């Protein structure tokens, strides 16, 4: 079963003559353990596709199936639960809670939805931070971390709940080329080692090497 299937997905903003078609009958499948790189110019619909795939945004029409679950008709509560349990997000700009330390940012995921921060959760957070090379930064607040370190913490947070699908938006946009590469190597390694699928949205050509497949979107239409 594919990790993600988008069938005839259409997303339209506005109404009447003010309509903007962000996604135009998109059909896309992401297989298990596949890393898909999504590229396209600004305003092409990359982020909209990502948010629809991650159940942050409902499509105007079409079907969104993540790991066998049709998320198109889920209510707000179910969508929140779905995002918490099935999807890991790494956003471009908003990524960490500033008043939580690196480790607490990971643990916060476990507390959402009435969950408890037990020994297993703490062990999981420690393990992830260790793998991400941030064991010695676990107690630091985001303001005490570099850009690359913040991005690594965000990756750890995205993986904390062992999601089936990881969605990453412009992971290298705020990093220099060396740091960008390091983060991508780490992201690739973590995703592959866990056998999860991922969509990585990027402008950055250097990221293309890290995907199993690259798809381009222009004006809301996936290019063949």
């Amino acid at each position, binding site marked *: 079963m594919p990790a993600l299937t988008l069938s005839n997905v259409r997303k339209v903003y506005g109404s009447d003559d003010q309509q903007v078609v*962000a996604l135009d009958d998109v059909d896309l499948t992401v297989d298990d353990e596949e890393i898909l790189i999504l590229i396209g110019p*600004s*305003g*092409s*619909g*990359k*982020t*909209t596709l*990502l*948010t629809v795939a991650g159940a*942050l*945004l409902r499509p105007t029409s079409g079907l969104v199936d993540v790991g066998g679950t049709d998320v198109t008709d889920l209510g*707000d*509560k179910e969508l*929140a*639960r*779905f*995002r*918490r*349990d099935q*999807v890991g*997000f790494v*956003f*471009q*700009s*908003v*990524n*960490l*809670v*500033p*008043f*939580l330390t690196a480790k*607490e940012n990971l*643990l*916060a*995921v476990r*507390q*959402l*939805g009435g969950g408890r*921060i037990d020994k297993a959760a703490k062990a999981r957070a420690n393990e992830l931070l260790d793998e991400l090379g941030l064991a010695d930064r676990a107690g630091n*607040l985001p303001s005490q971390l570099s850009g690359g370190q913040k991005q690594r913490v965000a990756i750890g*947070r*995205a993986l904390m*709940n062992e999601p089936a699908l990881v969605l990453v*938006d412009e992971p290298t946009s705020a990093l220099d080329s060396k740091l960008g590469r390091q983060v991508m190597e780490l992201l690739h390694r973590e995703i592959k080692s866990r056998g999860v699928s991922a969509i990585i949205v990027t402008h950055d050509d250097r990221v293309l090497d890290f995907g199993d497949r690259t798809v381009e979107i222009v004006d809301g239409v996936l290019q063949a």
Partner: protein
Amino acid sequence: MFIAFKEIRASLGRFLLLIGAVMLLVVLLLFFQSVAGSLTLGITGGIENNNADVLVFNERARGNPAASFLNPGSVDEVGAVEGVASASAVGRGIFSVAGADEDVVIVGLEDQLAGPAVVDDGRRPNAPGEALVSTTSLAEGFAIGDVLTVEGMSFEAVGVTDEAAFDVSTTLYVSYSDFAAVTQTRSGGQAPAPLSWVAVAVDDGLDPATVAERITETVGGIEALDRSTAANELPGADQITQSFSILYLLLFIVVTIVTGVFFLILTVQKQRSLVLLRAIGGSRWDVVKPVLIQVVIVVGLGVLLGVAVAGGLLELAKDVFGSSLDPRTTILTSGFILALGILASLGAIRRVLSVDPIEATTGGSVA
């Protein structure tokens, strides 16, 4: 709990400031309430804590004991009304105490049972020159055995009762004959002792208000009031209550505004964090809960500290204000402030609920 506490830890200074502000407002509120309570009781205590079920005044006095003068035949007329078990004369006057700046109120009782309901220490007077003394919390205290000289007559305190004073003054309950004597001495034998009001005990099982109504209808030129109504109609008590009520209202409004604005600003400042938490799967309750927990912690701590400080201050200033915290008022006020705190946070909660997780992608716009 986790997120709420971690945020408090990260912004400890700000939260401590709000706790301090709430504490200060609670201190002011409780302080004013205690002082107002003492003042009011100093005015109404003599009536409120009286044995009489009904008090009968001259109708032109409008419930003011100081302005009430009845003719001596009123006692018998009132005593003859159906439902009246007993009626006795009460005289009242203000006198200067020899060698003291303070005046005292002397209440002369034909029947000592028409006096205060409770004697806290000692006994009621049963011989000439004896007095049951009631001090207000704002007046100097008396002990059994103390002697006061009024118009050349000495009165020995044989009993003490709390909070049964008139006119926020030390009040001596004496026999009516002693009251008549001291009154006559002051007037040089020119004026008879006044009959200020008639204290009435009603027959068992009867409603005092009903009997009071019947007395008023039956006896001309008088106004009979049950004890509670008589206390409420005392001049000055209402004004004090109203003046302080305005202060309470202002303080309650300030508590609400301070708490509401604080949490609203805090919510605006952490908007991006809330967006993130919602985006990664937090429910609305997940982001509202920390706000509610913080409100309860901050306002609760502020109230607890305020109660402790107000209690301490009133204890320290007992000689000046003579007040202490009333447990019932303190609990009610504390609960009300906590409820106001939660109410005040509704603005912040509304804002939290309006958070759209989609904003996590590009700060609001998607592309």
